């Protein structure tokens, strides 16, 4: 997939995803060692974006498994299409033998493949994104463990399906609960934090190229300042980018126009709690 960490960095930069050494090296290793990559970090630092960027950069298809509480095997792996099977049984001619029908209804035609199985069966390059794995129950984690360690799935009626081409697997977590040691052991680990102001300025520059450099600098410094205050929800990178777009839409083009009043007016783009608004207005003495 990639030749070196630097290759990762340049390939991802081409699709507007800027990396640091940690990110590029870890992504490279995940591809080289064919290990799943577990990405943790605060909300909105670009964990999911990373998977999308890798998919685009390598021309792979992105298969996404969004985890939620109550997710089960039938939604994650595969399920038999009961309705169709019932129809098939009811529609069978009267003289058909049972074992024929039986063999017939447990074939590919009646199998509903879900993301995990689909990713394993594909022959073309694939990026499998398992999003917010911490939201699932422990049982699903055990299932993931099985699938991610051997990249094979056993379906009792069909036999074992083994990946002909291992997908690039990216697991994200917001750490609402600690994932099990066993799962972590099988994955490479990457922690994405809020970027340094220098890097965030590059990110904003890449996403919103129309924005003037001095204004971008001021913007990311302000975001960094907001993150130092004790807020319920600190502004994410995505929100900083939104902020930049908002400023453009409002016709704020020069760094000098980005004054206290403009900040106060557009604060809603980055802060989503009333308590946070009150706090920031208070601390920064905004009008």
């Amino acid at each position, binding site marked *: 997939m990639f030749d*070196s*960490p630097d290759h990762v960095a340049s390939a991802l930069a081409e699709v507007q995803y800027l990396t640091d*050494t*940690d990110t*590029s*090296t*870890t992504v*490279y*290793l*995940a591809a*080289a*060692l064919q*290990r799943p990559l*577990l990405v*943790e970090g605060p909300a909105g630092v670009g964990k999911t974006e990373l998977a999308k960027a890798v998919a685009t950069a390598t021309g792979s298809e992105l298969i996404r498994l969004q985890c939620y*509480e109550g997710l089960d095997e039938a939604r994650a792996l595969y399920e038999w299409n*009961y*309705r169709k099977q*019932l*129809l098939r049984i*009811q529609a069978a001619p009267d003289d058909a033998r049972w074992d024929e029908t039986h063999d017939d209804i447990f074939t590919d035609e009646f199998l509903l493949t879900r993301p995990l199985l689909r990713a394993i069966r594909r022959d073309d390059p694939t990026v499998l994104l398992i999003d917010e794995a911490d939201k699932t*129950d422990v049982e699903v984690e055990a299932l993931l463990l099985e699938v991610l360690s051997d990249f094979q799935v056993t379906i009792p009626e069909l036999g074992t399906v083994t990946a002909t081409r291992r997908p690039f697997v990216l697991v994200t977590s917001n*750490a*609402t*609960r600690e994932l099990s*040691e066993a799962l*972590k*052991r*099988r*994955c*490479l*680990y*990457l*922690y994405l934090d809020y970027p340094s*102001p*220098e890097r965030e300025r590059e990110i904003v520059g890449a996403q919103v190229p129309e924005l003037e450099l001095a204004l971008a600098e*001021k913007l990311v*410094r*302000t975001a*960094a*300042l907001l993150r*130092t205050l*004790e807020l*319920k929800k600190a502004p994410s990178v995505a929100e900083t980018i939104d902020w930049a777009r908002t400023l453009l839409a409002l016709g704020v083009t020069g760094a000098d126009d980005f*004054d*206290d009043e403009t*900040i106060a007016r557009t604060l809603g783009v980055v802060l989503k*709690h*009333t*308590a946070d608004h*009150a*706090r920031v207005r208070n*601390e*920064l*003495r*905004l009008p």
Partner: protein
Amino acid sequence: MTARLLDRHVSFVAALRRRGLRVSIAEDLDAARAMASIELIDRDQLRSALAATLVKRQAQRPLFDLIFDVYYPPVTGTSALEPFDGVTPKRHLPPAPRDAIEDPVRDAIRDLLAEYLASGDEQLLAQAVRDSIEAFGTESHGREGGPGMPGRARSPRAILAKVSAQTLMAGILAQVLSGVERGGVSEQRARTMINDRIRRFEDAVEAGIRRRVAEQTGVEIAVRDWSRPSVDEVPFLDATRADLAEVRREIQPLARRLAAKLAQDQRRGSRGQLDFRATVRASLSTGGVPMATHHRPRRPHKTDLVVLCDLSDSVASFARFTLLLAYALREQFSRVRAFGFVDELDELTRFFTPGGDVVDAMTRLAAEADVTGATGRTDYGRAIELFAQRFDDVVGPRTSLLVLGDARSNYGYVALPTLRRIAGKAKHAYWLNPERRAMWNTGDSRARDFDAITPMVECRNLAQLAEFAKQLGR
């Protein structure tokens, strides 16, 4: 991989394990494979590769970085700073406060540092770090302090005190903000930026000193000597101010994690009665065969939480954290009421408005809560009696009662019968004590007496507090 490199790697992993990182053999092998597939010449890549394979918890990353720095040190040059030659041009900065003794070397370093703080140039940073360690890193420099062993590395704190980067702030602020009106957002923005750079400087100096110690004493000893508990293990009672701020930041995420866990636990196994109608209706799509049964959701049972906390100075920080956590977990209880006391009792519930600001709540609580009376010393007896008189109806059969305090009542009356009566009415009653278990029952501590009425739980740090909250929410 060459044998020498392998030896290095094995002892590196051993050091990680000694310092409490659980590194499995599989991960160790992964790390070795990772090393084989990257350019070892690039130190940052090596660091990232080892971190990705060996460290699976971000809280352990700083420790990993420390140990990495010792085992795989960067190639260091010597200082670019000559002993002061008298011709180095002075930069135009407002004069910084000086010690009684003029120190040209120190001034030169401070100038260099100031330039970095203003510009953010990485090369200047590296140079400033190297120079400060070179100039002040060993005690043999002989400018100050007692007679240390010659050549022994000085503690990072001593060096940082000598350079005292914070005192440069005012000058640089003036420089950065020249032509801009002071106050408001621009000043704070600049402050954040400069503070950030100061922290980077301090971290780099610390890392440098650690490396020097390691070179002198051997890596094994150097690694053994550092210990810094992670945030959730900082004991409440002897935390520094910085620690406390960090712990407070940790409360919200902790509450979020706990709330998710509690909600899950409450839902789990909570399938109620069979919902016959829903089951039949769903079966229509499978030709009348009920493939899955449907159940009515079970009503969640939530308890009231009543917190009674000692707000005297010795345990106040502990009480505040617990209150914060209790209020952050508000949704998990049907109602939360809080009372504080020293030798007077006051209800604290009014400080915690839903969606309100935590920092605000804490400042207002400290300023406005009416908890000190005549003596100003903790009086458990009086507090309990007052609680029984004024708020007797607060505690009922659906209430969990929490008492927070160190159970030290200055040898006074402790109103055990009243407490027994109140605790008897509640569904559960617990006492959280921030002291080490070994300290209980020493001096004026009445832990044993209270423990007989309300089971006492040791709660010294966030980890223990979280563990307790988990049980309480069930």
